[in-house]
């Protein structure tokens, strides 16, 4: 791939805990082109969230240890950057939205102030901050944004809180948006809305997205490529259409089988045989 936005080479991360070392990521490699959407799918403990947080060194450093590998953003290794440079990347080049919007937003600041903080930090040239905040709130589909400026996070519903987080992430024009389980904590109907919102944003804003999820069901129509993670390793990686139609690895096959299909005649839900998969290495 010429001029990739992001290149991960042999990344390995472990956690030093009081009960021993946990190997969260055991040597993964992938790359992303500009504007591409990648879905990282796996169960809890597969290392997908850790990978996402590692991109800007957001993992708390004890206990996390970056054992080996490189994270190349526009050719520069994030893991070798000084803190000051890292902070210019965070929010400006790579932005995040997290799983629990209700706790991820600061409860004692208005949503205007939280979004303004990002803008003031990375785009100091902006004069009319309120107007800018309203622009992004509108972009993510919040009705009557001017009225919402001085609301506090708890005054909004879960879906709206997540939209605010998206607005905050977009407000500095990042090249990559990392969405860590963005819909898991939301109602099913709201989930669909947020995914639609992301799909719409993909058309309007030229931005790469990493969508981290355990749910294969939401990546259709959104992800160009998908990486399936199991126990810290990528076991399958390819174009979404291909992987969904013809999964190669047994784990991927098992995951896809778990998605309940309407009209299926099945008495038991499919489960995943971890022991057998572990034995495969």
């Amino acid at each position, binding site marked *: 791939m010429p001029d990739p936005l992001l290149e991960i080479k042999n990344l390995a991360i472990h956690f030093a805990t009081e009960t021993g070392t946990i190997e969260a990521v055991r040597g993964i490699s992938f790359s992303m082109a500009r504007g591409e959407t990648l879905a990282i799918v796996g169960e809890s403990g597969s290392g997908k969230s850790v990978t996402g947080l590692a991109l800007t060194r957001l993992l708390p450093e004890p206990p996390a240890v970056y054992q080996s590998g490189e994270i190349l953003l526009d050719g520069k290794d994030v893991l070798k950057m000084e803190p000051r440079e890292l902070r210019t990347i*965070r*929010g400006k080049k790579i932005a995040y939205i997290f799983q629990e919007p209700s706790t991820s937003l*600061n*409860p004692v*600041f208005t949503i205007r102030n939280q979004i303004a903080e990002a803008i003031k930090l990375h785009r100091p040239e902006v004069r009319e901050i309120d107007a800018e905040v309203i622009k992004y709130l509108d972009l993510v589909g919040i009705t009557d944004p001017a009225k919402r400026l001085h609301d506090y996070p708890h005054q909004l519903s879960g879906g709206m809180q997540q939209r605010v987080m998206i607005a905050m992430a977009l407000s500095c024009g990042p090249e990559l948006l990392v969405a860590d389980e963005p819909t898991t904590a939301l109602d099913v109907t709201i989930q669909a809305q947020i995914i639609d919102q992301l799909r719409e944003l993909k058309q309007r804003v030229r931005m790469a997205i990493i969508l981290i999820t355990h749910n294969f069901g939401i990546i259709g129509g959104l992800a160009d490529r998908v990486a399936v993670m199991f126990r810290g390793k990528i076991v399958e990686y390819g174009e979404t259409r291909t992987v969904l139609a013809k999964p190669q690895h047994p784990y991927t096959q098992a995951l896809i089988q778990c998605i309940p299909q309407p009209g299926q005649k099945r008495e038991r839900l499919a489960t995943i045989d971890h022991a057998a998969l572990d034995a495969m290495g």
Partner: protein
Amino acid sequence: MFSYLVRRLLYAVPILLGVVAITFFLDNVMMSPDAKASRVLGPKARGEQRREWIHNRGLDQPIPQQFVRYIGNLATGKFGTSWVTGREVREIFVTGAGPSLCITVPGFIAAFLASVGVALFQVFIRNSPLDRGLTIVSIALMSLPTMVYVIFAQAFLALALCYFPAYGFSFDGLNVFRFIALPVCIFILINVGYDARLYRAIFLEEIGQDYVRTAQAKGVSNPRVLAVHVFKNGLIAIITLVVAELPKLILGSLLIESLFGIPGLGNVLVQAIQTGDQPVVMTSVFLGSVLYLAALILTDICYALADPRIRLS
């Protein structure tokens, strides 16, 4: 909000009544009227002197009657006169409040600023050896009784080195500072250890919250995350605690005042206990309870005002 306040005030009334009742009956169980009279009038007082004294204060009436009369007096603000000095109790308390506040207010402000500063600093360098060391120092400061601080300060700083007066108080102009210097410093020392640990725990709790990660993901620098995000959230709990302490400041520290000879309310109480001055003691109890209950109500109000989640719901 208003109805909530009213409910809290109403709830405070039975407690006040209970407090007054307990102290009243304890007091009457402790000593017979005759013993009280002997104590105040001295051992040389004759029988009829004592009887007259008892009768003048209505102590020979049946106890329930005395109690009712006492409640009535309290309700109308008649706190009686001192058995020892004859001064109006109300006046004693008004003049005594000044010296107490001269020590507790500066001490409290200084201790608060120091504790918050140390706590934030410790969270910034958390889990480092210095953090551990500061925690141990805080615990050590809490592990000495007040008297030890006072006695050593008086012996060495005051008497030996003559930097400060060891005893006494005066209100005139700049002289006040000489007299309150040592008491205020000791007040700070005994409180800062406990407060710093408490605030550190509060800030540490906030560091673990999700919004901190979001702030870092936005590229906010660590000092700013602490000083703005964590601080403002932690402040809600801290302000509530601080406000709860404020009413007690009027009463002053019993030990510091009596050991330094500061004529504050703490000293008033100690003297009253030692001389058996019942009206003063009873009023102190009543005042103490009122302040305590006021602090509880203030805490609730403060919490509701400071936390937007409660204020706007």
